[in-house]
């Protein structure tokens, strides 16, 4: 059984006029101890998917479908049971470590709160455990650092604190939503390295959400490419990067700067608003391979080669090489 199986997840915002769908029948599964990369540009619904798993969707958003975590459906579960699960079995770290820590509490208090709440430790034991956790995330002199406040730490250190909080109860799934986007490259490398080590040591699965295809290349096992609330391509990472079958994946890879002076091949146009998506294939208005067939109905996400899924009717005809001319 998969650790987390997402079946037909749809999320819509309720507006005054009509519901605005932002995530549309998403299907994927995360296995135990696997790093699953979810890649997409802003507004594609990747963060909302994470929030749905955490049971933290905003008031005006409604989710449908099944989020089966070890056989239990997170969407229909009682609020109180979700609260007990969250932070213990599933935890999350966010993009901006500055705004996700409480500025008026010491980091020691904030981490030990997780341990006393979920594991019932005494304050003293929890503080000892906190120091061990700070050691595990490689924060130097943790005995001193536990008594510091978030403003006394750098961005990279704060993200380490967030990770320490995330792994405090040995969760089976850690959701990392753009964990390194706010950080410098040398710090990004440190944090990704740390996440990799912790995952090995603790055998936890990681849902790594990012806009940077380079981040998943080095760190993930599986990758799903999202666009307009849908998965466009799903496969293991090396297949996605070496033999992409969806024009959007190809467009993303071609947008990365290569050798000097070679003109880039950007994806034309801009990401459409969720209430103004084209008919048929949602990428058709920006796709260089578009034919009239594409506008008739939306393609299914189908297996185009063993283990590789793509939502494109022309997936067999196109290859990355043919788009490079």
């Amino acid at each position, binding site marked *: 059984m998969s650790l987390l199986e997402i079946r037909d997840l749809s999320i819509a915002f309720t507006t005054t006029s009509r519901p605005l769908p932002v995530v549309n029948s998403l299907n994927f599964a995360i296995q135990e101890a696997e790093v699953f990369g979810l890649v997409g540009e802003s507004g594609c619904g990747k963060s909302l998917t994470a929030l749905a798993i955490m049971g933290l969707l905003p008031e005006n958003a409604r989710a449908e479908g099944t989020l089966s975590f070890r056989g239990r459906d997170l969407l229909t579960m009682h609020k109180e049971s979700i609260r007990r699960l969250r932070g213990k079995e599933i935890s999350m770290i966010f993009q901006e470590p500055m705004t996700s820590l409480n500025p008026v509490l010491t980091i020691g208090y904030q981490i030990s709160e997780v341990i006393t709440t979920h594991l019932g430790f005494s304050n003293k034991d929890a503080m000892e455990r906190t120091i061990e956790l700070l050691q595990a995330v490689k924060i130097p002199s943790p005995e001193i650092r536990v008594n510091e406040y978030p403003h006394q730490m750098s961005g990279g250190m704060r993200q380490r604190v967030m990770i320490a909080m995330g792994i405090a109860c040995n969760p089976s799934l850690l959701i990392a939503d753009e964990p390194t986007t706010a950080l410098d490259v040398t710090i990004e490398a440190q944090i990704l390295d740390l996440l990799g080590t912790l995952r090995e040591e603790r055998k936890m699965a990681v849902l790594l959400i990012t806009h940077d295809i380079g981040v998943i290349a080095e760190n993930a096992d599986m990758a799903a490419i999202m666009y307009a609330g849908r998965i466009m391509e799903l496969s293991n990472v090396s297949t996605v990067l070496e033999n992409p079958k969806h024009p959007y994946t190809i467009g993303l890879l071609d947008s990365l700067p290569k050798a000097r002076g070679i003109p880039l091949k*950007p994806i034309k146009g801009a990401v459409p608003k969720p209430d103004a998506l084209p008919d048929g294939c949602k990428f058709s208005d920006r796709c260089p391979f578009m034919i009239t067939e594409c506008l008739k109905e939306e393609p299914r996400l189908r297996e185009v080669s063993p283990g590789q899924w793509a939502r494109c009717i022309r997936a067999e005809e196109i290859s990355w090489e043919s788009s490079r001319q």
Partner: protein
Amino acid sequence: MGTLHKGGRDFVGIIEAIELKKYFPVGKGPFARHGWLKAVDGVSFSARSGTVFSLVGESGCGKSTVARLLLRLTPPTSGRILFKDQNVIDLKGDSLKAFRKSVQIIFQDPFASLNPRMTIFDTLTEPLKIHKLARKSEFEERVVSLLRGVGLQDEVMNRYPHEFSGGQRQRICIARALAVSPEIIVADEPLSALDVSIQAQILNILQDLKQRASISFLFISHDLRVVQYFSDEVAVMYLGKIVEHAKADELFGQPLHPYTSVLLASAPKIKPGGAKRTVLKGDVPSPIHVPSGCPFHPRCPQRFTPCDTKEPRLEEPASKGYKERQVSCHLWNPF
């Protein structure tokens, strides 16, 4: 290359910084100054006409402050800025206005750098009015050609900034910079607020301007893939100082300074299963408490005895074969 500053006046450049320093006082209140934050500490370089000169470094290294100094948006603590051999600090009146026309800027955040109450037409004609570059009857024609130059339709001119996406706004910002036909554009992280697929579109526009309109660029970025793609010459900054300066091909082909090597190795690669990134220990120290000796020594994987006490100078490496590039490291310039 002839552009490296060697203390003399034997170089030609469109814009030059000479021993530029910018210190900010830090402390509680005006009477209790504890010290100085040395945002820019003795930076010298010269950007050649028609080329792209890039400043790279992590946040807080002073690269944006250098841009603000060059544009005279903030006065330097000491040092000189030369624009076509004129000292920018001394400019007044008409000559200052002429300088402002020749040097334009594109900012990082296109959501914060357009006036929300001005239509695109007003935004693009304001510089024409200020610099008296066109008669009123010619405005529409000019705006149309500016918009087409950045790949936007004519009809957008009557709309307001909130109607546009980030990528479109950045195109408008570029059109506004081009309205006065500048000689050099300072681009401070022009891509980092944009999505990946849009970044490539904007980068293609900039590349096109460089080639067709032969505009020079001072390009500031932390994204090394973009810098490698777009630059002719690169200076790497760390804690307010330039630690390495070379032609882009040479710098990316063979980085000399250990910090440059680490920076290049830290950048994400899209080859799966390729070499793991080099992971550097520690954070960038606070620019208020710069380490003694070489500012990079606490994090440097190759440090040795003199590094923590003696500060290296930015100079050509002593060993042969490294002409026309500079590095500030004891490995290359032993004493």
